[in-house]
């Protein structure tokens, strides 16, 4: 147990240091990819929190968009500083998801899927339809970057550059992941898993399952909103199509490919697929097809995702080397 914990700690340390050193090794293009990857870390981890209660929400990306729109509107039209709109974006996404959760947590299985999609899509369509303040199909452009941090006489940080923005994203991602990890390891996390596993037991020990489902949905949406804010201020323009169903599908592919049983699974999934995406940069039109094959192969042969791979390999190994123990 002790050993396991310390190896976990060293692993965590190495990965953290690698991400801190990363931008200096990368070109400008790859730095942007790295920023997107960090944003996607928040997305997949918060999505996983929702999946632990058994619901695969298709409203996650639209809720991310809601965070992005909130921050974009408040900074662009009302002059709020980024540092305030960051939590506000998360909070608005959480609030709307709370409203959505009233019907959603009462619906189970496949219907939850469709209903969550409908909820997200209704919101997204509203952005395409309403010119002010959402900008209709064209969305919002010229979103300001986060305000410069100036400490007189010492230094100033300008977030137009990719390296400072990388570190900003790194910080936000780090904090988000730590909070999400703590939730996962806490009683709340276990209760959510228990709800998915056997709701009769959960009911019989006095747990209000709907309440917990709502909480996981709302917390997940909060972090999706945060991811949206960070996204909006890097690319400085957003439009409804960015938060459409295709993006949702990518999110599902990442999470499914990595596996949802462990916290690290989805992070692994999105990292590997981002690398695949970089490698296939010249074949961008074929990318969805590659993703399609990955999905089919994953569901058929790796139902637990990448995180289940070591166990599978060990099993095969044992099968062919029965003597080795």
């Amino acid at each position, binding site marked *: 147990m002790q050993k396991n914990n310390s190896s976990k700690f060293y692993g965590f340390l190495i990965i953290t240091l690698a991400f801190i050193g990363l931008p200096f090794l990368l070109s400008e293009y790859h730095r942007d990819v790295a920023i997107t990857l960090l944003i996607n870390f928040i997305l997949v981890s918060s999505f996983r929190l929702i999946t632990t209660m058994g619901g695969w929400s298709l409203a996650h990306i639209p809720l991310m968009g809601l965070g992005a729109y909130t921050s974009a509107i408040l900074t662009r039209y009302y002059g709020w500083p980024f540092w305030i709109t960051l939590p506000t974006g998360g909070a608005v996404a959480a609030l709307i998801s709370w409203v959505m959760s009233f019907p959603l947590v009462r619906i189970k299985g496949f219907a939850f899927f469709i209903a969550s999609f409908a909820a997200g899509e209704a919101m997204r369509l509203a952005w395409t339809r309403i010119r002010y303040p959402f900008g209709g199909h064209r969305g919002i452009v010229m979103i300001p970057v986060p305000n410069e941090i100036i400490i007189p006489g010492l230094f100033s940080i300008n977030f137009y550059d990719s390296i400072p923005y990388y570190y900003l994203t790194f910080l936000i991602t780090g904090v988000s992941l730590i909070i999400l990890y703590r*939730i996962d390891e*806490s*009683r*709340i996390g*276990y*209760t959510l*898993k*228990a709800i998915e*596993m*056997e709701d*009769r*037991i*959960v*009911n*019989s*020990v*006095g*747990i*209000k399952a709907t*309440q*917990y489902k709502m*909480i996981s949905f709302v*917390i997940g949406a909060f972090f999706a909103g945060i991811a949206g804010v960070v996204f909006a201020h890097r690319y400085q323009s957003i439009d409804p199509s960015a938060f459409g169903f295709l993006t949702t599908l990518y999110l599902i592919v990442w999470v499914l490919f990595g596996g949802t049983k462990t916290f690290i699974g989805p992070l692994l999934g999105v990292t590997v697929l981002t690398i695949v995406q970089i490698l296939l940069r010249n074949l961008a039109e074929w990318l969805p097809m590659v993703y399609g094959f990955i999905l089919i192969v994953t569901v058929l042969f790796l139902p637990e995702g990448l995180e289940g791979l070591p166990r599978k390999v060990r099993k095969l190994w044992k099968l062919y080397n029965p003597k080795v123990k």
Partner: protein
Amino acid sequence: MIEKYFLNVEGLFKSFGKNLVVHDIDLKLEQGEIRGLIGPNGAGKTTLFNLISGFLTPNKGKIVWQGKNITGSAPSTIVKNGIARTFQLDVLLKDMTVLQNVLIGHHLHVNIGVIAQLLGLGKVKEKEKEAMRMSLELLEFMGLLELKNEIAGELPHGHQRSLGIAIALATEPKLLMLDEPITGMNSVEALNTMKKIKCLREKGITILIVEHNMRAVMSTCDKLTVINFGQKIAEGPPENVCENSLVIEAYLGSPDDEDDLILC
């Protein structure tokens, strides 16, 4: 009027479609007793459990618990009031460890609101520690301590049963309803479990058991209630009930063949 019974079920009706499963049942429990609820398969025993524990809502009738009407309350409310139950099949958190199962069972003990838990406010850590201590104690009591890190779904049936009881006990009930607690156990395990059930009574927990093993029921229960086709057909001390002709008929179809009654 002062309620004289611990649990007072009056005139309960429940039907599924046209099927009347529970038909005008009264059940009065006194504090500290061990009551056996017996009857042939499909007599409505489990439905009665589901009605009392709030998993089903009765069509008619009322359930009064310590003077408080709890008819139609949600399961979580009823557990909070002190009525816990186990399930007939091995309903467990099968992919979790034995210890985690019991820890989840301590939900009510730790529960200080989700927000407080999130922010780590209040006495979360202290309460979690307490829950851990109590869980280990419970596992020891049920004889599962060595198995605490095993995956619940991989345990043999007998142990799964015991775990089910441990989960229910974790809610610190005043009334424990056991649905076939020793089915699937070998005779030694069964004997042990029945001993533990008596031991629980010594600790002040009132117990309602559904069980098919007549020998175990006869030796443990203070009183038996027999139902058949959703109706109560007999009630009283085990010896009396056993001689009741209605009961014999219900179990055997006709009073001629008395093979099964050797169990008594």
